[in-house]
């Protein structure tokens, strides 16, 4: 077919669109993803993100440690030295305290679930579009991370591994529109499904209007989705709206999804101790509502956080 030269770009555009429509149709029809493109994209774009995270932390340290100190010297040499040293110390201690707080929380959670294999990971990036709620972590297939593994923090559920690449993995947050978590009301043990909406808040469905759900009630994982272990905090009830036959419950996520820095990847669907038990005291709900639940026994020699032994999944998995 002879196409006039002025119309060739238009024909080419139609062909390009058609090819991608077919690609989309293939993914929808087969329910399969085009993994190769995702792997290439992740392998190409995540190393700079990893480097950027590292560089930023160094620049941050240098800024407060060196530049602040130098500007203080100009005012008064002796006092500035003293002030600078103290400020540096203070900032280092503050930074260390904040990091120690986060890591202690992770370690407490880890030790409370010493027999459950899990892996600490650092958040290195997020989704490149506003329609999806995903993050990238610095752990991948080489660390034993696989698709559909649960990702949590000591505060609660974060999401699940959507795609595992050789050295990184993409986590689908619970707030994503396609996320769903089997959940139950902590007090009445009524089951439902928590769904993401793309907004910071979550929705819980399939709870009948007759069920009284007070604001502030905690929502836990039910374990029915075969991804998240039972009794992990999902969120707290923010508001409810009656409907027929089910009411709509709006939740605030338990994990701080807007400021994630470190997360834990659960390498199994093993039941975990609830996060309350990491601080020493079992929750009333655990004692009264779930007496049969056997809490995870702390190991005699708790394994270090997996972060301390990168690249060796065998050591990290118990």
């Amino acid at each position, binding site marked *: 077919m002879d196409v006039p030269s002025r119309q*060739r*770009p*238009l024909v*080419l*555009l139609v062909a*390009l*669109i058609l090819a*991608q*429509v077919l*690609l*989309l*149709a293939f*993914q*929808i029809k087969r329910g399969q*993803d*085009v993994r190769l*493109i*995702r792997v*290439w*994209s*992740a392998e*190409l*774009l*995540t190393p*700079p*993100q990893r480097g*950027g995270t590292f560089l930023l932390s160094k620049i941050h340290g240098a800024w407060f440690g060196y530049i602040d100190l130098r500007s203080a010297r100009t005012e008064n040499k002796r006092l500035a030295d003293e002030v600078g040293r103290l400020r540096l110390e203070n900032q280092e201690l503050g930074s260390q305290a904040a990091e120690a707080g986060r890591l202690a929380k992770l370690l407490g959670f880890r030790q409370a679930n010493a027999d459950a294999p899990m892996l600490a990971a650092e*958040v*290195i*990036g*997020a*989704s*490149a*579009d*506003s*329609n*999806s*709620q*995903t*993050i*990238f972590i610095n752990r991948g297939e080489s660390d034993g991370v696989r698709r559909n593994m649960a990702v949590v923090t000591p505060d609660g559920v974060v999401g699940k591994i*959507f795609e595992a690449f050789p050295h990184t993995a*993409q986590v*689908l947050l619970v707030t*994503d529109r*396609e996320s769903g978590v089997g959940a139950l009301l902590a007090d009445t043990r009524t089951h439902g499904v928590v769904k993401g909406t793309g907004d*910071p808040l979550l929705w819980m469905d399939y709870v009948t209007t007759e069920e009284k759900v007070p604001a502030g009630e905690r929502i836990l994982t039910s374990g029915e989705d075969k991804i998240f272990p039972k009794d992990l905090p999902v969120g707290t009830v923010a508001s409810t709206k009656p409907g027929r036959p089910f009411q709509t419950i709006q939740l605030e996520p338990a994990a701080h999804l*807007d400021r994630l820095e470190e997360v834990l990847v659960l390498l199994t669907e093993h039941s975990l101790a609830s996060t309350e038990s990491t601080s020493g005291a079992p929750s009333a709900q655990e004692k009264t509502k779930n007496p049969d639940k056997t809490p995870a026994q702390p190991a005699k020699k708790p394994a270090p956080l997996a972060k301390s032994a990168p690249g060796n999944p065998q050591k990290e998995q118990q």
Partner: protein
Amino acid sequence: MTVRMDSEAQHIEVHKFYSGTVAVVCFLALVLQAFLNKFNTHFQLLELPLLVVVYFGLSRRNSVSGMFLGTLVGLLQDGISHTPIGLYGIAKAVIGYIASSVGARLDTEHPVSRFILMFLFFHIHQVVLAITIHLLLASSEPFFSVHLLIASLINSAVAVFLFAGLDRLRR
């Protein structure tokens, strides 16, 4: 360097860039888009990959390279997002094509025209996305909302400064 091509009745200025500039800028836009979103969800309002596709489309004024650049950037964006592969590829291929075609006909150097063009391109991009999602994914995506209006104004404002910065990379 500016190359003038005298055709039948119009002068088309085609801007050339130092070798590798297009690839590096697109790569940085994609990395930054994902990297910034990590720190603050407000950065989700920005669409850096769209901005660079529009800029190179308007500057190079070659509809074939514009649509291929749009497709490549869109597919890579799909690759690191939780969207089916091809969704952003289609939208950005269309934008690359239209931007190149518009660039050959209109003044795209003035900040005001850049602001208006970016505003329009943002909404065309959203309409193509929404149509694709409606038709192929049987899901709902708004064609227009206040949130999108704010996002388009922010992107248009950023485009004015970003495009002026990118102009310095021309030969």
